[in-house]
C-alpha cells in the first residue's frame, strides 16, 4: 500500500494547508451548487409562471366566447418552449376546455393531480378577466432546463475549485519554502555533524525569528560538544590501547581453548562411534552374549540373547543367568565352577528342544574376578547333522562289512548250489538222497535269500531299475497286502492324484512295501490301521532328506501305523542289520536293513518317527523320475533245456572252486569249456584265434584285470561274441553307467543251473 502521507515537515504543512483549502472550497462549492440550484429552479418556475399567465390571459377571450379552436392554437404556441410537457385549459367550472401535449410526452388532464416533483414542475394559474376567474391553466414542465443549467453551474464550481487549488498550492509552496529555509539549514548542519562527525561546522543564522534562536542555540551546543569530543578522544585512544592488549591475550587463550575443545569433540566422536559400533556388533552376533557381574547376574545382553530366551531386555537384566538362560536355580548352571577355577568353562546343554554350546569366560581385573562373559551358541542343526552323519557312517561301515561277507558267502553258495543241482540230477533214482539233497537245497535257498538281503542292505545288490508309478503299484498290490496282514488290520491308501514316478527296481520296491507292512502288522497285535500315503513336491530348504535330494522333486511315501511305537533308542538302531525286537526265530533283523539299503541305493532317504503307544511312521523319500520310460517287460523265466554240444564257452573265474562248479554244471549240459583264472590269459587265447569261442563267461571281481575291463578289451577286436558277467555284488568299479550298459549281461551269484542256462540262452540268442 502506498503511503501518501508526506515525510518532510514542509510537505506536511503544505499538505495540511492544501487539504484545508480543498475541504473549504468543496464545502463552498457544494453550498454554491445547492443555492444556485434553488435560484435556477425558482427563476425557471418564475419564467414559466409568467408565460403561463400570458398564455392563460390570451386564452381568456376564447374561454369566454367558447372558442376552443383559438384556445388550442394559443396553447400550441407553447411548442416553442421545449421543456413544457403539457398545458391544459379549464373553464371556471373546472371542465377541460383545451390542451396542448408535447409530442411523445405524458398527458396530465387535471391540475388536481400532481406529478413527481423531482422530475416535473406543475404550475396552476388562474385566468382572470376584470379580476374575475374565468378558468385555469395547468402547465407541466420537465427538469431538462434546470439540469442543463445545473451542469453548467457544477462545471463552473469544479473548475473554480481546481483553479483555486492551483493558485493556493503555488502560494503555499512559495511561503513554506521561505519559512523552512532556516530549518533546512539547521538540518544540513546536523547531518554533517552526525554523518561526518565534523563538530567544527556551524548553522547559518538566516532569520531573527524562533528558527534563528534555534540556530544560535545549536551552534553553542556544537562548541560544547567539540570540546568534550577532544577530551573523549584522548580517553578513547587510551582505552583502545588497553583493549588491544587484552584482546591479544584473550585471542591466545581462545586459540588454546579451541584446540582443546576440538580435541575433546574428536574424542567424543570416537567414543560415540565406538559405542555405536560396539552396540551394533554386539547385537549382530548370532550367539546369545550375556555380560554378568561377579555373582552371575546379567548386566547386559545382546539382541540374540533376548530372542533365544524369549524375554525382553528389562526382564533379563538384573536376573541370575541360571534362571534366565538355563531354566535352573542359581549357581546350578556351571557358574560356580568358573568362580572356583577362573578359567573358561564350555558346556553343551539341551534346552527347550534345542542344543546350545555354552561358554563361561571369567573377567579378571587385577587378579580379581569382576564378572563373566556368557555365550550361548545354538548348535541344534549341527548337532542333528552330526548325529545323522554318525548314523550314516555307522550304517555305511556295517553295509560294507555285510557286503563283503555276502560276496564271499555268495561264492560259496554258488558252488553249493551248482553241486547240489548236479547231485540231484545225478542221484535222481535214489529217493532218500533226493530228499536230503532237497533239504540242502532249501537251506541253500534260505542262505541265498539272507545273502541277497545283506547285499540289499549294503546297496550292492544288482537292481533292475525302471520308471514306474508308485501309486499304481500300491493300488495293484493293495488287495494282496490286505490278505497278507489279516482281517483285524485295515490298510488305507491316501495317494496323491498325480502320478508318482520313480526310477527303481519295481520288484524290490514291492518287497520293501511288503516288509514295511509286515513290520507294521507285527507292531499292532490287537489290530489297527496302516495308512500309506504319497506326496510329490519339491524338497524344502533345510528339509532333512539327505544330500542326494536337496532342491529336487521328491516323492514322499509314508507308511503309518497306530501300533505300540518305539523308544528313541530302538529308533536309532532300527535299520541296523540283524537288529530285531521280535522273538527269536520270528525275524531275521534284515527286513528294515534291506529297506534302508534299497532306498539309499535308489538315491533316496528314509526316516522314522515314532512315539510309544501312539504308533510309528516310516517316511521314504525318492527322487522323482522325469519321464515314464518304456517299462521293461519281465523276461520269461521258463527253463528250457539247452543243448550245449555245439557251443564252446570261454570261462574266466579267479575262484577255483566256483570255476570248477560252473565247469561241472556246463559240462553236464554238453558245453565245451575252456577255462582260465586270469583275464589276461583269456585275452591271449582269444587273440591267438586257435579256437573259436561261442560265448565268454567272466567273473567281474578279479585281480589284475576285472571283468568289465576284460569285456571292453574283447569288444575292441570282437564286437559280436556273446558275453556273460558274473558278480557277487555290484561293486564300486561298476558305476551306474556301466550298470545300465551291462545290466542284461550280468548274472548275480549265487545262481543255480537253470538260471545260468537261461542267461546263456538269452545272451546267445540275442548275440551280445
Amino acid at each position, binding site marked *: 500500500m502506498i503511503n501518501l502521507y508526506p515525510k518532510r515537515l514542509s510537505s506536511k504543512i503544505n499538505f495540511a494547508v492544501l487539504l484545508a483549502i480543498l475541504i473549504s472550497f468543496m464545502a463552498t462549492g457544494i453550498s454554491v451548487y445547492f443555492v444556485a440550484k434553488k435560484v435556477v429552479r425558482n427563476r425557471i418556475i418564475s419564467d414559466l409562471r409568467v408565460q403561463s399567465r400570458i398564455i392563460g*390571459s*390570451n386564452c*381568456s*377571450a*376564447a374561454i*369566454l*366566447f367558447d*372558442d376552443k379552436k*383559438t384556445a388550442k392554437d*394559443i396553447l400550441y404556441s407553447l411548442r416553442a418552449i421545449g421543456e413544457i410537457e403539457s398545458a391544459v385549459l379549464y373553464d371556471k367550472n373546472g371542465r377541460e376546455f383545451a390542451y396542448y401535449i408535447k409530442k411523445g410526452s405524458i398527458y396530465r388532464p387535471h391540475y388536481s393531480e400532481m406529478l413527481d416533483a423531482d422530475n416535473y414542475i406543475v404550475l396552476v394559474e388562474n385566468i382572470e*378577466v*376584470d379580476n*374575475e376567474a374565468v378558468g385555469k391553466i395547468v402547465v407541466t414542465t420537465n427538469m431538462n432546463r434546470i439540469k442543463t443549467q445545473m451542469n453548467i453551474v457544477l462545471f463552473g464550481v469544479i473548475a473554480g475549485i481546481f483553479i483555486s487549488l492551483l493558485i493556493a498550492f503555488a502560494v503555499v509552496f512559495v511561503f513554506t519554502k521561505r519559512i523552512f529555509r532556516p530549518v533546512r539549514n539547521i538540518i544540513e548542519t546536523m547531518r554533517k555533524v552526525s554523518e561526518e562527525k565534523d563538530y567544527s561546522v556551524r548553522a547559518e543564522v538566516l532569520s531573527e525569528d524562533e528558527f534563528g534562536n534555534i540556530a544560535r542555540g545549536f551552534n553553542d551546543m556544537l562548541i560544547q560538544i567539540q570540546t568534550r569530543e577532544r577530551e573523549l578522544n584522548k580517553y578513547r585512544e587510551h582505552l583502545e590501547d588497553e583493549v588491544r592488549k587484552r584482546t591479544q591475550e584473550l585471542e591466545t587463550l581462545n586459540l588454546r581453548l579451541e584446540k582443546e575443545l576440538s580435541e575433546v569433540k574428536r574424542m567424543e566422536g570416537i567414543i560415540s562411534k565406538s559405542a555405536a559400533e560396539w552396540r551394533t556388533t554386539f547385537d549382530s552376533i548370532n550367539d546369545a552374549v550375556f555380560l554378568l557381574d561377579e555373582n552371575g547376574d546379567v548386566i547386559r545382553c545382546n539382541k540374540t540373547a533376548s530372542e533365544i530366551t524369549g524375554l525382553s531386555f528389562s526382564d533379563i537384566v538384573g536376573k541370575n543367568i541360571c534362571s534366565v538362560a538355563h531354566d535352573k536355580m542359581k549357581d546350578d548352571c556351571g557358574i560356580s565352577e568358573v568362580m572356583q577355577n577362573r578359567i573358561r568353562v564350555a558346556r553343551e546343554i539341551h534346552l527347550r528342544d534345542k542344543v546350545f554350546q555354552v561358554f563361561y569366560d571369567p573377567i579378571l581385573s587385577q587378579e580379581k574376578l569382576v564378572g563373566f562373559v556368557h555365550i550361548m551358541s545354538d548348535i541344534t542343526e549341527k548337532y542333528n547333522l552330526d548325529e545323522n552323519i554318525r548314523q550314516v557312517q555307522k550304517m555305511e561301515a556295517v553295509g560294507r562289512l555285510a557286503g563283503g561277507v555276502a560276496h564271499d558267502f555268495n561264492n560259496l553258495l554258488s558252488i553249493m548250489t551248482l553241486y547240489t543241482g548236479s547231485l540231484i540230477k545225478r542221484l535222481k533214482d535214489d529217493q532218500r538222497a533226493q530228499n536230503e539233497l532237497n533239504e540242502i537245497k532249501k537251506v541253500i535257498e534260505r542262505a541265498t535269500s539272507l545273502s541277497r538281503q545283506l547285499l540289499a542292505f549294503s546297496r550292492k545288490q544288482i537292481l533292475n531299475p525302471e520308471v514306474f508309478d508308485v501309486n499304481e503299484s500300491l493300488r495293484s498290490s493293495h488287495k494282496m497286502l490286505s490278505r497278507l496282514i489279516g482281517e483285524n488290520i485295515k490298510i488305507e491308501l491316501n495317494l496323491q492324484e498325480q502320478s508318482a514316478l520313480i526310477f527303481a527296481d519295481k520288484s524290490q520296491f514291492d518287497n520293501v512295501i511288503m516288509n514295511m507292512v509286515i513290520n507294521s502288522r507285527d507292531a499292532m497285535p490287537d489290530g489297527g490301521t496302516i495308512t500309506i500315503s504319497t506326496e510329490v513336491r519339491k524338497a524344502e530348504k533345510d528339509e532333512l532328506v539327505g544330500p542326494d535330494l536337496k532342491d529336487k522333486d521328491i516323492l514322499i511315501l509314508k507308511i503309518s501305523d497306530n501300533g505300540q511305537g518305539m523308544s528313541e533308542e530302538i529308533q536309532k538302531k532300527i535299520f541296523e542289520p540283524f537288529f530285531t525286537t521280535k522273538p527269536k526265530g520270528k525275524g531275521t533283523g534284515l527286513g528294515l536293513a534291506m529297506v534302508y539299503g534299497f532306498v539309499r541305493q535308489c538315491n533316496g532317504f528314509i526316516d522314522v518317527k515314532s512315539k510309544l503307544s501312539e504308533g510309528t511312521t516310516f517316511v521314504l523319500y525318492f527322487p522323482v523320475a522325469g519321464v515314464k520310460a518304456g517299462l521293461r517287460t519281465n523276461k520269461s523265466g521258463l527253463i528250457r533245456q539247452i543243448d550245449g554240444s555245439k557251443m564252446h564257452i570261454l570261462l574266466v573265474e579267479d575262484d577255483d572252486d566256483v570255476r570248477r562248479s560252473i565247469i561241472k554244471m556246463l559240462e553236464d549240459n554238453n558245453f565245451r569249456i575252456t577255462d582260465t583264472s586270469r583275464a589276461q590269459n583269456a585275452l591271449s587265447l582269444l587273440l591267438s584265434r586257435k579256437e573259436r569261442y561261442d560265448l565268454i563267461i567272466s567273473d567281474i571281481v578279479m585281480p589284475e584285470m576285472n571283468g568289465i575291463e576284460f569285456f571292453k578289451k574283447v569288444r575292441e577286436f570282437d564286437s559280436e561274441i556273446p558275453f556273460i558277467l558274473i558278480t557277487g555284488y555290484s561293486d564300486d568299479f561298476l558305476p551306474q553307467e556301466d550298470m545300465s550298459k551291462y545290466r542284461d549281461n550280468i548274472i548275480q551269484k549265487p545262481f543255480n543251473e537253470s538260471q545260468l542256462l537261461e542267461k546263456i540262452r538269452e545272451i546267445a540268442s540275442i548275440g551280445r
Partner: protein
Amino acid sequence: MGRLLAATVLAFILYSFSLFSLPPTEYQVKTALIYNFLRFVDLEKDSYKNNNIVICSFNNNALNKEIQKLKGANVSQYVIDFQEIQDDDNLEKCSVLIIDKRDDHSLRKILERAYQQKVFTISDIDGYGEKGVVINMFLKDDKVKFEINTEASAKSGVKISSRLLSIAKIIKSINK
C-alpha cells in the same frame, strides 16, 4: 357587486337551462356575448356616462327583454344601464347602441350619428358589420359567431382587446 350579480344571474340562467335541459335561446346567448364584448373593449372616456355603461336599444328590438337583465351588472368599475330609445333620440346618453334591422339609409344615418357620439355599435343582422357596425353577431353552424369592423371601431373610438380580436372575424366596411 354588480358583476357578481350579473355573473350570478348568468349562472342562474345557464343552471336553469341545464336543470330543465333547455338550451339557451339565441337572445340569451347574444345577450351574454354583448356582456362579454364589453369586458374586452375600452370606450372613449366620454362614452361612459356617469361611470355607467348605458346600453341603448331601439324599442322594437326583440333582444331588449334579455338585455334588460344586464342592468346593474358590472364591467370593471362600470355599471351597466339600459335604455330603450326612439330612432330620432339623441345618442349622447348612449355608451353602446344595439342596432336592429332597417333600411340602409336609416342605418347609415344612425351609424353617422354613432360615430360622431363615439358610441360602440353592436348588431345581429347579416351584412351589418360590413356596413359599418363595430361588432356584428351572426349564426354559423348553429353557433353564434361575431365579426369586428376595425374601421368602424376606430371611427367609434372603441379600443378592442387583441384577445377579442384573436377570436373574432375581422372585416372592413364596403363602400357602395
